[in-house]
């Protein structure tokens, strides 16, 4: 066996216990050796080698599982529920590195001999490969959440009052999007450039979004909402266009709709805003990209 492979396990990262390590720096190698004089040493070791082996395999499985999870969310398109499409390539990188590290760990686990674990004791206290059940459990949390909880984008429930009716122009210096192609964000940016909202009167719009309603909203009004995100859902913020629609009470919270109509300045929640008076509302499926990217 090549010596470098044997070395794998010695490269152990320090264990969590180092957080609580009060050991004096002057005598680093001594405190770790006490268990060598333990009369139950042999039995102890035998037990721990099985444990170590299981941990090495679990580690490899977790790395491969992470790689598989990334491939899964990329292939299914669920990735767009979490991050800006601009950063999709980062997830490709993550998938590739996880699989690479996973394959590497499989080799390490296959080639690990009892000798490695024995040797491990010389300098290592019981840290072995730096793994503990706790670490393995923590690292499996993303996999558990990712596989057991159905993947859904942020929706009406995630807004809980934080809904903005204005948007900064951001990096755009001029506004050139064709009115009928504008999404919720484009419209809010456009309103931001107007000196008088009345200039938007009678502008025609064709936009999609999900229905957001609070109990305080008038019965025939709702917000056509979208989440915008720059990087990932951590910085998601909700935007909304107030919509006036006679049959608004029929629409379910969170339902994705396509609204066609025209704007007219009016009162909404005490603010004077352009309100979209809907002529037609169609129920639609959640779009492939649920978020808008400013």
């Amino acid at each position, binding site marked *: 066996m090549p010596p470098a492979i044997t*070395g794998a396990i010695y490269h152990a990262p320090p264990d969590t216990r180092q957080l609580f390590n009060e050991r004096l*720096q002057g005598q680093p190698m001594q405190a770790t050796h006490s268990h060598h004089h333990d009369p139950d040493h042999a039995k102890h070791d035998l037990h721990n080698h099985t444990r170590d082996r299981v941990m090495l395999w679990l580690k490899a499985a977790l790395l491969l599982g992470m790689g598989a999870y990334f491939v899964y969310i990329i292939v299914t398109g669920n990735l767009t529920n979490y991050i800006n499409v601009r950063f999709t390539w980062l997830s490709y990188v*993550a998938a590739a*590195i996880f699989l690479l590290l996973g394959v590497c760990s499989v080799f390490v686990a296959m080639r690990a001999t009892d000798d490695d674990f024995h040797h491990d004791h010389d300098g290592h*206290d019981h840290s072995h490969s730096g793994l503990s059940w706790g670490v393995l459990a923590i*690292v499996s949390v993303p996999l558990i*959440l990712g596989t057991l909880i159905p993947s859904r984008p942020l929706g009406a429930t995630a807004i809980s009052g934080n809904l903005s009716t204005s948007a900064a122009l951001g990096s755009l210096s001029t506004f050139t999007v064709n009115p009928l192609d504008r999404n919720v964000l484009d419209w809010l940016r456009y309103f931001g450039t107007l000196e008088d909202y009345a200039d938007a009167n009678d502008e025609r719009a064709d936009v999609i979004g999900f229905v957001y309603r609070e109990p305080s909203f008038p019965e025939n009004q709702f917000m056509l909402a979208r989440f915008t995100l720059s990087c990932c859902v*951590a910085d998601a913020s909700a935007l909304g266009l107030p919509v006036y629609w006679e049959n608004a009470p029929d629409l379910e919270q969170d339902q994705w709709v396509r609204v066609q109509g025209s704007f007219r300045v009016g009162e909404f929640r005490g603010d004077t805003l352009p309100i979209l008076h809907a002529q037609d509302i169609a129920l639609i499926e959640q779009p492939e990209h649920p978020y808008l990217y400013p």
Partner: protein
Amino acid sequence: MDSDAKKMLRRLITAVAGISIVVVLGAAVLGTGSDAGTVLSIFSTRFLGIFIEAVPFLLLGTLVSGLIDSFISADDIARWVPRNPILATFVGTFMGFTFPVCECGVVPVVRRLFTKGLPMSVGVTFLLAAPVINPIVLVGTYVAFGVGPVLIGRFVLTAVVAMIVGLVFAFAGRPQEVLQAGSLMPVMGGDGTRAYDPHEVIPLYAKTKRKPLLIGLRDALKMAGDEFFEMGRYLIIGTLLAATMQTLVSQEVLLALGRGPVVSVITMQLLAFVLSVCSTVDAFLALAFAGTFTTGSILAFLVFGPMVDIKSTLMFLGVFKRRIVIYLIALPFLLTLLFGIWLNLNVTF
């Protein structure tokens, strides 16, 4: 403390952490008045969003860390880094351009460099400056804010704060007093968990022979796998906390806190700490606050956040002694606060 007591303590802390996460999540569910399934779904989306966005940087950081371990010897670093603590601090500030890492990736790299005998001041300055002073963040901040006070202020302030803290460490700390045993060079009393192994690692005070390419790559990959678990758990715990906070605390409440020249800066610093958003993308998040918050507070957010936040604090604990982690949080916090308030009071943007 003997090993049984340590084991007990560790179990106790794990249990307490686990229980508190469950309790906080329970409170989140009750607080929003929504059903548990919906809240769990939102929590899961927020958690995975941060995780999926952050983990490639963590992986790249661990790979760079592994490659540095395999291919960069103590001799190389001795050649690169000036011995003069002031010059070394300056070098540490701009080393991010050769090692482009964000704050999740920078900690393993710094720890690796410490085990290779990097001077204390360079390591600390690099740790604080590299997440901002690197090409990726430069471009990101430019796209978000253009060339202006925020872009220039962010880079200048980061360099100044990092250098000041680096100098404090250069003159006030021996590595043995600052680092966890596992982050120390063996000759300085490292406990050997990291670098010391008679069969493999050539003692660093000896002339180091460079590893052959393939063996070096293989070792780098193994190292990266280990580092992922070690640093990944901090990232995951930090992300769990951040996602919990985002599900619990409404942005409106946070916004209401910060208008004044002092309160806004403190608020944005705490927000940066709590949100733990990666330095490569925090400029876009700050953009959302730029309309309502003082420019000084936006800068404080962009300077302090990449240096210290929940997840990097948890990572610091794996490298530095606990007392030192307090300095590493307090010094950048106070300096950034001071600069932020000063800018708000004296400069019209």
